[in-house]
């Protein structure tokens, strides 16, 4: 049992994963999160990249907008593009199903990389809701962060001003670390405070 798991893990680790492969692995892992931990996908996700001034960057931004406008109707998708106080551009997507927003997010990431801004990509963020199971029906947001530099996911559960729930984060790790490319080094679980995902 554990032998096979190790075997599978070593295969997974050796396979050179592209960002889109890695991100798409969420299409099964999110079901695990829902059935095992009661975490419901909110249909919201975002990709963030370092914003720079210049023609190429705004051209890319326009391309993304054009692309999202075109697929808006078909996928019942809404989107928003904002720049945060750190100077990072956020492309925020809201859709009906996980599969849809994954596909859209991967396409946006591909556009960014095609335009030569892959080194600017910071993270993709996926939002979940604990449906109030922890705290007398008060819903809390929990996140999976995909780091483009390390090509790995890690959990982020903020519970207050610069306070995170490590216990809940470890639970998430226990459930899905074998299913998706997962960052097992907890010292690299850098948070993203004040995410601009809220509608």
């Amino acid at each position: 049992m554990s032998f096979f798991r190790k075997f599978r893990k070593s295969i997974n680790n050796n396979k050179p994963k592209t960002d889109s492969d890695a991100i798409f692995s969420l299409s099964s892992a999110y079901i695990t999160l829902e059935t095992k931990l009661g975490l419901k996908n909110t249909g919201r996700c975002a990709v963030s990249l370092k914003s720079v001034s210049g023609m190429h960057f705004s051209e890319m931004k326009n391309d993304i907008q054009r692309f999202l406008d075109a697929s808006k109707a078909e996928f019942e998708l809404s989107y928003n593009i904002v720049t945060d106080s750190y100077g990072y551009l956020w492309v925020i997507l809201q859709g009906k199903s996980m599969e849809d927003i994954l596909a859209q997010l991967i396409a946006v990431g591909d556009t960014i990389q095609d335009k030569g801004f892959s080194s600017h990509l910071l993270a993709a963020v996926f939002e979940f809701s604990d449906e109030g199971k922890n705290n007398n029906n008060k819903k809390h947001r929990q996140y999976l962060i995909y780091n483009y530099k390390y090509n790995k996911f890690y959990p982020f559960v903020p519970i207050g001003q610069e306070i995170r729930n490590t216990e809940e984060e470890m639970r998430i790790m226990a459930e899905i670390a074998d299913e998706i490319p997962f960052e097992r080094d907890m010292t690299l679980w850098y948070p993203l405070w004040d995410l601009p995902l809220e509608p």
Partner: protein
Amino acid sequence: MIILQWYFSDRIVLWSSGAKIVTREQFPKLHDIIERIVARNNLPKPKIAVITTNMPNAFATGKGPKSSVVAVTTGILDLLDIEELEGVLAHELTHIRNRDVLVLTLASVFSTVAWYLMQFGFYGGMGYGYGGGSRDRNNGGGMILVIIGAMLTWIISFLIIRAISRYREFAADRGSAQLTGKPVKLANALMKISGTMKQVPTKDLRRVEGLNAFFIVPAVTGSTIGNLFSTHPPLEKRIQKLMEMEASMS
């Protein structure tokens, strides 16, 4: 010698660590937690001792389930919340239930005997070596075999003791998980005790990226150095196993 060592083990440990047996009046909460665990699981209640030091730690000692002591430091009482403390105490109670002191004492019999044989053979062999004469030289050869044999026995039993002790730790973790039903609390406690809790960063990713932009080579994160010199891979293993138990319980 070994029997004496086992017989006095608890007193030696308590005396050398400066642990004081405490009554219910002195530490009511601590007594409460332990009584809750033993009552739920039909175990005899051990004596409880406290060591006054900031170092967070806990241990169990004693010859058998009936005459055991669980000792905790004041540091661990300050550091952990009640559920985490419960996990740690259940871990120690499992050590007692599994008679781990006895197991390890028995396991060390071989290594102790081998150690004395080695010493004896070594000094004995020296004496023969300088003696000269064919008969003595033959004897010296035999002695060398004894030394090598004893050395091998000692090394092997040393490794076996390490393995047993590691295995017993895992077993106690598992026991704690069963007694409390909350392995994640013990995992939390282990992280707090080892200081790993502080290593989960609170610094924003965007701020970290900003800093790295100043360097041509990305700044070395603490973890890389930590991994190189880390002496505690077992902690990660223990946490991993605890979280697997947590996953299987949910």
